[in-house]
């Protein structure tokens, strides 16, 4: 059986490599043989500039340094949002009184994209770090909360009944049944929230920053350096991709019990 799986995986990897190579070739050829070269540098230029930026700083830091700036901002906003969101979401899903109070608020706030908050955030917190933490927090909060809420709401009543019959009181049921039972939903929420947070940090940095990958992009625009813009974009993409993979790995470990098979 494993032989089939390996073969199928091999095929997927090969297909991915071919598709990316094809894209790069198309890009290269398109730029070389058209008048786009002013607007769009070729892939070789971008990639070599990217690799150079690993060692040679752009502005105040190497690309690695910029990445760390962005990630640290994400970390603060995301961590606060996750903790608050999980607690709020699960209690909302389990206790009707909490639901009645908070759910309408969330339904109003949820559709507002974090970017719309930028002007208000700048007014309140200025152009410094707190603004960025605040925006990232907003971006992540709604996702984590609503998913945690869905998780708590979808707890199978049979588990609750079984716990009651085994002598568990309400508090124990909340801690030992509702919380663990919501973990798969919570995790889905955390994954979406992380993507949101990462997207938001780039936007927040583009407002005003000299460090961070968003800063790299906006600086590139200011000095008319298209290559730098693309290097920034490439960095955003790579880091986003790596974050997603990390989350998926974590999920396989933390939700290992969640296999189908009743």
């Amino acid at each position, binding site marked *: 059986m494993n032989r089939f799986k390996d073969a199928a995986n091999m095929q997927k990897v090969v297909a991915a490599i071919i598709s990316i190579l094809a894209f790069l070739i198309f890009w290269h050829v398109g730029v070389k043989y058209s008048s786009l070269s002013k607007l769009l540098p070729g892939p070789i230029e971008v990639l070599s500039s990217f690799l150079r930026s690993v060692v040679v700083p752009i502005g105040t830091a190497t690309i690695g340094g910029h990445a760390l700036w962005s990630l640290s901002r994400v970390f603060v906003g995301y961590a606060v949002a996750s903790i608050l969101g999980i607690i709020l979401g699960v209690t909302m899903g389990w206790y009707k009184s909490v639901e009645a109070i908070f759910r309408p608020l969330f339904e109003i706030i949820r559709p507002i994209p974090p970017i719309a908050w930028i002007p208000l955030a700048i007014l309140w917190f200025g152009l410094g770090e707190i603004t960025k933490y605040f925006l990232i927090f907003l971006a992540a909060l709604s996702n984590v909360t609503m998913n945690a809420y869905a998780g708590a709401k979808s707890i199978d009543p049979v*588990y609750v009944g079984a716990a009651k*019959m085994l*002598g568990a009181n309400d508090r124990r049921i909340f801690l030992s049944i509702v919380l663990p*039972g919501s973990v798969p939903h919570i995790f889905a929420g955390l994954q979406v929230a992380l993507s949101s947070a990462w997207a938001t940090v780039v936007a927040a940095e583009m407002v005003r920053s000299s460090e961070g990958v968003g800063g790299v992009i906006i600086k590139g625009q200011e000095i008319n350096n298209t290559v730098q813009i693309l290097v920034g974009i490439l960095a955003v993409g790579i880091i986003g991709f790596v974050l997603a993979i990390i989350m998926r790995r974590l999920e396989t470990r933390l939700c290992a*019990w*969640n296999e189908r098979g009743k």
Partner: protein
Amino acid sequence: MRMEREREIKENVIECKSLSKQFETDRGVADVVKQIDLDVKENEFVVLFGPGQCGKTTLINLMAGLEKPSSGQVNVSGKIVEKPGPDRGVVYQTTALFPWLTVMGNVEYGPKSLGVSKKERRKRSQKYIDLVGLTGFENTFPSKLSGGMRQRVGIARAYCNKPIVLFMDEPFGHLDAQTRYLMQEEIMRIWEQEKRTVIFVTNNIEEALYLADRIIVLNNCPTSIKREYKIDLPRPRDYVSSDFLKLRKEISSVVDKAI
């Protein structure tokens, strides 16, 4: 190996008096459980036998305290049942094992909820894990176990709280026919080793006759008692002995047909 067991006449462990349950539907009020009068003695193995899905689970839920009756009452050990409690244990058809806990975690959940010390509850849980034949699987997650093994965990978990009465709601319904035979033998072995009062629900006549001291034949919608049979056959019983087959024929002809 034929064994006769003397059973002392003891006080009733469970008494149902005119137990009834109705539900509101769009078509008005529906009787789901109607006028159940039932007395069960200590360590009796009573089987509720009947077709269909109508009210058997509701009846179990009423007796266990997971639902409140519309009228009538249930007494366990002389006290009225008003809410769920650890003196009554339940084994579910879907096992309802907590998937995020290991076998040990599931089995010790009851004692842990009741504040039993770690040392004591580990000891007790291990005893019941051994009793159901799952020694070595203490740290396995339910998703990695077969259907029959999961049900054993369910039984161990229910037993571990030392309940006065065990309710089993079609626990072997999702198992294939052969594993079912195995589990019937296993539940008998477990029950003989640690006697409890058991109320066991099934729609399988062979299973009912193999296990029961008494078979209560239920009507389908609404669930009510049709007839009672005392089963005096010595254990372990033989599915194809002439006495067994005679009873099987008789009870099958009495029971309602499902749709």
